[in-house]
C-alpha cells in the first residue's frame, strides 16, 4: 500500500494557504511523468488576475453585468440586492486561481458603510462579454475547530 499518512498530516495543517502561493501548475499532481502528454492549455492563467479583480471592482455599479449566464435564471432581477448600498469590492489578485476549465476562484472583500466587512471566495468564469460571477461562499475568519470523532 502507498504511504499516505505523511501527506495527510501535512495537508491537515496546510488547508489554508497564503495567496502568495498561488503560482502553481497542475503538473505537480502526484508527481506523474505523464504531464508531458497533456496538451498546452488556452485556459485563463494567473495573468488574468488583474482583469478579474478589475471586473469585480466595477460590479457595485452594474451588478447585473457580472451575472454568469449559467446562473442568470436563478438570480433573475435581484442582482442589485446582492450587495449592500455603497459597497465596494476589493479582490486580492494574489489569490486568483484559474481552474483550467474557463474560470477560477479569487478572494474578494466586500465593504459597505454600516455593514460588516465580508470576505468571499468568488467563483468566476470568462464569457465572451467578460468576466462573470458564478457564485460565492463567505469565508469565516478562522477555521472551525475539528470535531472530535
Amino acid at each position, binding site marked *: 500500500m502507498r504511504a499516505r499518512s505523511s501527506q495527510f498530516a501535512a495537508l491537515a495543517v496546510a488547508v489554508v494557504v497564503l495567496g502568495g502561493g498561488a503560482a502553481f501548475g497542475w503538473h505537480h499532481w502526484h508527481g506523474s511523468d505523464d504531464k508531458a502528454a497533456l496538451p498546452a492549455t488556452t485556459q485563463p492563467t494567473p495573468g488574468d488576475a488583474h482583469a478579474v479583480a478589475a471586473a469585480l471592482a466595477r460590479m457595485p455599479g452594474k451588478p447585473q453585468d457580472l451575472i454568469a449566464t449559467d446562473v442568470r435564471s436563478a438570480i433573475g432581477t435581484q442582482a442589485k440586492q446582492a450587495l449592500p448600498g455603497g459597497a465596494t469590492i476589493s479582490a486580492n489578485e494574489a*489569490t486568483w486561481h484559474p481552474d483550467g476549465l474557463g474560470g477560477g476562484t479569487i478572494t474578494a472583500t466586500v465593504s459597505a458603510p454600516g455593514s460588516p466587512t465580508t470576505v468571499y471566495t468568488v467563483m468566476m468564469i470568462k464569457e465572451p462579454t467578460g468576466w462573470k460571477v458564478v457564485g460565492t461562499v463567505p469565508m469565516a475568519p478562522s477555521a472551525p475547530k475539528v470535531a472530535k470523532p
Partner: protein
Amino acid sequence: MNRHLRLGLGALTVLSLTLPTTALARAASTGAPNAAACGSIELAPIIDHADDGSKITSRPDRRGVYVPIIMVPDWTGRATHDATRTGEFSVPLDMSTTGTPPATPRASLIGQLQNIPGAAVYTFDYRASAGKWVDDPGIGPALGDAIDCVTAALGQKAILITHGLGGTAARYAVAGQVAGHDRGNEVTTVIGFGSPQNGSQLADLTNTGVGTTASEPRILSRLLIGACAGLAPARFDPYSPCGSIPPEAAAIGVSGAAGSYRAGSAALTGLLPYPPNVALDSFAGDVAVKAPNLGWFNLRPFRTDQVSLGDLAASTAAVTLGARSQLRSTCSFTLNAFGTGEQSVGLRLDDATAPQLGPAWAGTVRQCYGADLTRISEFADSLTALITKEIRDRQPLDTSELESLPVPSLCGHPAGNLVGGYLPGIPPDQGEVALASTVDPSRFKDYTVFGDLTNDGVPDTVVVLKCTNANGQGADAIAAYDNGATLLGSVSLDAVTDRPRDEVYQVSVSKETGRIDWRTTRDTDSPCCPTVDATATFTYDPSTGGLKAGKLTSFNETEIAAALFDAGRTGKVSKKAAGMAPPEIINAMIAANRDNGIFRSLACYGPSPQDASWPAVAKADFGDSWPPSDGTRHGDRFCLIKLGATGAGPTYAQDPAGFTAPPEPERYALLGLEHVGFRNWMAVEFRLPGGEDTTGGGNDNGGGGGGIFGTPRPGGGPLFP
C-alpha cells in the same frame, strides 16, 4: 491493427515460429494467451495473491477457453499492471462502501478478476494520448482494433471494464462510427466504474452558456478546484480530490478536447449508442454536499441542502444512465469556507461519520470519489460476481448440474429434482424417472446436447429422460434447460406418436431448432423390439414458454425390403441393397427368382403371434409361430415374397397382351430383417418354402422349411449404430 491484418491472425499464429512478434502466444507464466499481436492491449501479469493468500493461477473455463476482459482506464490512460501499482485497476482493495475498509488490503481488481476461471485480463494503456478526445488514434480506434484482434484470437466475445472517461473510449469502440457497423457481436458487457454516459461533470464547467442541469454542482466543483489550487505546490495522493480532479480538469479542459466531454457537445452527441445487445453495469460514487452558505454575495438563489457532486468528476445520473445494474458508494459532507482577505479559500468538507477528516479533505481518499471506485471491496465482489456469472453463462451445464436438474411430471410420476440423475421418492417397484445419460453414460453425446434454442446467445441444454411406470412401460421425454438449469420445457414422445413406447436414438440442436430421432412401436411388434423409426423437430416457443414439437415423420423396413426385392427380381444390386444384406442372401434371392419362382409381390409382417395378418400358407410353411424360439435372431420384421411359377416372365408388365397366367400355387419366400438403428435394417436370413432348395447354397438348420441363407445372429437385444 486494421481488419485485413486481423483477418490474417490465424495464419500468423500458425507461423509463430517465424513471425513471433505478430502471433498470440500462450504466456508460460499464466496460461492465458498474451496479446503481443493485438496492439495496445497486453495480458496483465499476475502480481497479486488471492485473498486467502494462495497463488492466483490463470486457468481456462471448463470449455478450455478464455474470455477476454479488457481494462480501460480513465483519462490518464494508465492501466499497465505492474509492481508500481500505478495502473488504475492495480491498487489493492482497501476501501468499503460502508467506510470501514477491509482489515488488510485485498488483491487488486485485476487480481480478483484473474482468479476467475476462464478470465483473461488485458489492460489497455493509452497514456500517450491521455486527455484527448476518444477519436484520437491512440484511444478509441486503437481500442476497437484490440477488441477485434483479441476476440478473434480467443474465439470469445469480450467484456470491457472501464474507469471514468475510459467509458467514453469504450463506447466509441463498441458502438462504432457508422450505424450498423458496431462491435455488438464482439462485446457482451461494458462495466463502468464512474464512467459517464452523457458527459463529464468537470467538462460541463467549460459550458459558459446555460447548462441543462442545475448549476450548483458546477459552482461547487469550481470552488473545490480553486481550493486545491490554493494549496499548491503541495503534492496530493492521486486518488484524493486535489490529486485527481484538478489534473483531470486541466487535461480535458484544454483546447484539444475542449468541450468534447461536455454534455451536449457535438462530439459527444455524435457518438452512437451502444448496440442494444451490449449490457451496461455501473458502479458509481455519490457525493452529497450541504453548502448552506453558497450564494451570489448577499443572495441565496441556489439549492444548498443536498448538492450532488456525483463522484466529483461525473454525476451519478450520468454514470448510471442505461445501466442494467448499479451500485453506489455514498458520502455526505457539509462545506464550510474560511480565511481572510489575504488568503485563498480554505475549505472544509466535514463528514458526520468521519469528522476528523474535515480539514484534510483535499488529500484524503474516500470511497465515494471517482478516482477511488476501483479500490472498493464490495464493488470488486460485485464485479467478480458479474464476470463469473457471465463466463459461467457461456458454458453448458456440467455433469453434476445435469444430474440435479428439475424434471416435469412424466408417466405418472410427479415433477421433482433429480438426485444423482434419478428422481427420488419413487418406490422400487413403481418404475423410475432418470437422466438417460446417467443410465447409459456411454451414450452421453446421444442423450445430451447443447445449443441455443432461445436465441439469446447462450447455450441451452437438452437432455433425454427415461421414464417407466409400475408396469415397466413408459416413453422417453426430452427436456430443455437454460444455462441456469431452469426448465424451459419438455416433450414426452408418447404425446407425439400416441404410442406407449418411445426410445430416443439421438437428440441434436442447430440454429434454434432441435431434432429428435427415436423409435417407437406398432401393434405387430414383439414386446422387445420397437420397429418404427420417427423423427421430429422441436423449438422453443417464447409465447408459451415451452417446447413445441414439429411434424412427425416415421420410417419402417419397407424401403430396404423393396430394394432387396428388386435386387432379387432384376439381378441388379443397388448400393442400398448391397449395404443391407450379405452377398449370400442377395445371391440366394436372385437364384430363387430364377429357379424357384419369380418374385411377384412383397409384404412385411411382425412376428406371427402378434401379427394375425400372416397368410395361412406362409404360416403352414414356416410354422404357426414365427420366429421360432431356437435361441437365434431371425429378425424383427418378416417380409413374405410371393413366388410365381418357375420360368415365368420376369414381371407381369412384360406379359404379352391377352396372356392369362396359369394358376399358380400360393408360395412365399421369407426375408428376415433386423432393425439395427435409426432407419437402418439388415437382412439376416432368406428362406424358401419348405422342401425347396436353390443353387445358392445355404445352411438349412431345419427351422421351418427349405433353403436358409444368411446367418441368424445369436439372440440379443436391439442394436444401435
